[in-house]
């Protein structure tokens, strides 16, 4: 098991390293002079030279890259060009919106997908299955930001139950925070939940065809009992794979949803940073997002090993 974790950690670090090179190259090397990118074509040569000095852009690419990475490893993420505050502080603050939102949405996703997917799979072809499939067909086709607009239209404008967006922060109490994140989390979760639901359904149907389910019934279990005791844990293996990928889609989706609901998260910061061409901020936010994505992949691999004891063996 230790070897397994170490190998996966190695993959994680390698992926992060390559991603950081890609990000750096795409933002600071290939487009040309970052100072020019930041200030636009109307800037005078003097202003550009001043910015180049300030940002240390006169050095070669390699030392600049190394300085960026080693700074981050020491907790120094640099200063945001527009906000004039340490990037680390900005990120920490914004992360406290994006991560809870994505996790909240993941909880919704799982709570919807697993029970309904199980029900549809266990009753394949019957009316429960047909109704669930019909709604999942619609759910998969929902653009999450449009669904968010519809939710605002109904619950904020028509019914007036909630505000149309904004986030007053965790210092007003976590209940208040969760309440404000509920609508965005639902908007984010529904389309992903319907995808996961279908994965759960077909995995369960596939499992139900396996010989060991027949064996379990030959012991005297009913079909539902056999699926419950022997089926779902085996069906969970493909479900976990998709769930791991979905968390990265939830993070990516949060970028859009934060903009619909005007939530002060990483995504909104990102869109603003792009508008202001704050390259230092952009680089770091994207690397943070990649970090979240690969960390979740890593956790997914660990969850695998928990579900499937075959993976826990030293060498196979």
């Amino acid at each position, binding site marked *: 098991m230790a070897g397994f974790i170490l190998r996966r950690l190695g993959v994680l670090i390698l992926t992060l390293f390559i991603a950081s090179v890609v990000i750096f190259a795409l933002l600071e090397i290939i*487009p040309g002079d970052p100072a020019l990118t930041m200030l636009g074509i109307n800037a005078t040569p003097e202003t550009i030279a001043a910015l180049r000095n300030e940002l240390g852009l006169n050095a070669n690419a390699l030392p600049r890259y190394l300085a960026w990475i080693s700074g981050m490893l020491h907790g120094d993420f640099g200063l945001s060009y527009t906000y004039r505050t340490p990037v680390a502080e900005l990120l920490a603050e914004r992360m406290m919106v994006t991560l809870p939102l994505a996790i909240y949405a993941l909880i919704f996703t799982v709570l919807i997908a697993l029970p309904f997917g199980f029900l549809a799979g266990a009753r394949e072809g019957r009316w429960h299955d047909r109704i669930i499939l019909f709604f999942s067909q619609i759910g998969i*086709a929902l653009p999450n930001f449009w669904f968010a607009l*519809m939710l605002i239209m109904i619950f904020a404008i028509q019914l007036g139950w909630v505000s149309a967006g904004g986030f007053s922060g965790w210092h007003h109490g976590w209940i208040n925070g969760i309440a404000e994140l509920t609508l965005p989390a639902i908007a984010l979760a529904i389309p992903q939940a319907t995808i996961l639901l279908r994965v759960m359904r077909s995995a369960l149907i596939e499992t139900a065809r396996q010989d060991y389910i027949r064996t379990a019934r030959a012991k005297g279990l009913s079909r539902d009992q056999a699926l419950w005791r022997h089926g779902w844990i085996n069906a969970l293996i493909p479900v976990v794979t998709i769930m791991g990928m979905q968390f990265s889609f939830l993070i*990516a989706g949060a970028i859009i949803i934060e*903009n619909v609901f005007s939530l002060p998260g990483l995504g909104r910061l990102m869109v603003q940073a*792009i508008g202001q061409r704050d390259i230092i901020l952009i680089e770091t936010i994207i690397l943070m*997002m990649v970090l979240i994505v690969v960390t979740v992949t890593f956790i997914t691999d660990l969850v695998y090993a928990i579900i499937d004891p075959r993976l826990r063996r030293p060498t196979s």
Partner: protein
Amino acid sequence: MTAPYASPPRPRKRITGLFIGGMIVSMITLAGLISFIWTPVDPGIMDISNRMQPPSMGAWLGTDHFGRDILSQIMAATPVTLAVAMISVMIGIIGGVPLGLVAAFNHKPVWDHVLTRGGDVLFAFPAVIMAMLLTAGFGAGISIAMLAIGLFNIPVFLRMTRASAMQQRHMTYIQSARLAGKSMPRIAVEHILPNIAPVLILQATIQFSLAILAESGLSYLGLGAQPPVPSWGRMLADSQTMIGLAPHMAIVPGLTIMLTVIGVNLIGEGLRQRIDPNHAVVPAAHIAETDIAENNNFKNNQPPTALITVQNISVRRHDNMLLSAISLSINAGDRIGLIGASGAGKSVLSLAMMGLLPPDFHVTGQMHIHGNDIDLANDAAMRDHRGKTVAMIFQDPRLALNPVQGVAAQIAEAAQLAHGISGQDAHHMALDSLSRVGLTPDIISPDSLPDMLSGGQCQRVMIAMAIIGKPQLLIADEPTTSLDTVTQNEILKLLNRLADEDNMALLMISHDLAVLAQMVEQIYVMDQGQIVDYAATQPVNQLLTHSVSQKLLAATHMDQHRPPRPSGQNDNSDIILSASHLSRTYATGHSMLGKAHAQKPVLRDISLTLAQGECLGLVGASGAGKSTLTRLLLGLEKPDYAADPAMITLAGDAVTPDHMPPAMRRRIQAVFQDPYSAFNPRHSVRRIIAEPLWLMPERLTENAITDKVAKALQSVGLDPDMMHRHIHAFSGGQRQRIAIARALITAPDVILFDEPTSSLDTLIRQQILTLITDLVAERNLSVIFISHDLAVIRAICHRVMVLEHGQCVEMGETDAIFQNPQHAATRALLDAIPDQIRTG
């Protein structure tokens, strides 16, 4: 009765999701195309006085905050969205598919690792994040959005292609293509790509709808289409601030996106149902209903004390009658055999008796247990008896156990269900039961997972599970068919002993009369869903009179049918194939960069010779190294480098996997075990048989090829007209004949038969063996025949080589080995032959 290869009746046409999806997508595409020449109003024209108008006769879908016509804007945006989706999917396919093929097929594992890791890195940038990165570096625009979505599609297609190609790679037909002299890249394009294309097309529809959603999201954020290019996503962004005043501005574009995506998804799903083998219609034996009445010979004389009686059980699936009016009765302690060819309905009957048929099987008739009527339609009625009165074990024990649960826990669950005892007690009971079947803790740990056990051990676990509820009847459905003969013998002895000790009735199902005859006291013979013969006293095999029984009986008498021994056998000039010092080691694990770090020897220092016209048998239990030796001899794999250099010569020339010229390749061909994976399912029989002709020095005309294929088909006893059919229309025996025809077409000197009959039932096995020996005699072929079954080997081979754990433990003349076996492994194999055959 219709021919076995007749195609099943076509299902009635009805309106499918595929049709609806196709309609939606074509209408949207059409609207997009029309927008190039006509829209109701110019989508760019503003009319401030008519802004934010709800849908009306003048503007069908209303107007926006500048008074622009929404319908016209939506039409004008359609081509943009569809083009972005299409191009981004193309980027994914063009980038991902070739890389996936390289990852799967390059023989250097390092490429696989590099490409997979590279895919993982790309995969860590979801389209939105990639789009932001590219926009920050190069500015916003529709082509940036397209590129970002396309880049994300590359690892998706790479993974998909690699995974499906890996699956195909192990199919026997890939080996056959290599025997036909084709290179790996050529095989990838000719065989693999067409077979994985359906999966890729399906993935393309999924990525297409995801791309539509991603593009609209990016345009909403301002990262996609820039004004004045119209876009569904940007229309939604504009609508957000007016959502209270003009809800239609938000509703209409959103519904358009949804409708498009639903349309594409319906197409994808329709395609999937056509591709998915689980939805394919399986042709089954078709029985006329009029036959039912005549078939009640065995039902009227059942004693009322019977343990279990079955009366007039019929099973139907859709329009196929699988069983018609079966009646039989089992008393306490009976030993009953049920025999018939594959497809006779044996398993259907046993599953019907257990109440375990899948839901689309319709059962009628009566069943009584201890005189109590069992309601066949009610699962709960039979459930009380499962595991307690009647237990069952199955054909493939490895698949019959839950792969993620320890074996003792699975047995304990059965104990709890049968006896209603605590978990602790059940665990102790499970350990006792494991000891009874010979799996004491010193042999396997009770916590072992099924994949750590051998097939025979898994079947023992299944037996331990079945007997724990003290059932009065154990149904064993081909319990040893997937096991080698030595293990088969041990399992049969175990079942016998347990049945004696527990006074348990046995219902043994088999296609092999020789196996049954030594186990049971009564035999029912089944054919096409009916019981056609019955014998109740020993020796049962002499009392069976029906023509079907006679055929099954004949199949057990494995007559000697050896081709004539070539003359001048001791003269070395006659040696056609010789091999010396062959060893092979496999790596069992890889480090991150693909370096092997564990080695497992499977073949150690094997040497052999084969004379012209000789038939050499290679025998050994599973895992003895037989198949590895085949691949080395065929030049498909390289032997290890060793102190004594390995050497294979074919008619005097050295065989090397790196360079096997066509002139040499065509002199040695092979027939493999599994007739179901041995052919490319997309090719016609003619193309399959003709493939090795590529190795011939001269290019043949189409007519000459047809002629050769026809002759080959005739020589294996098939109708030449069959060459235009596809392979799925043929039965297992016919497929094996086709495989032999393919091996013959280049007129080789040597043919390797790798267990060619072990997945066929006994009747067909006999026919194929006869065919092989006739061909050998007729064409003076030299043959290496591999089997785990000594009875088959004795019937046709002149000399035998016995393999155990990769080593040759005994070699000599067939008769000498049978009369005076020297090695323990040989004796175990001999013991495993059912008595009836050994004595004659």
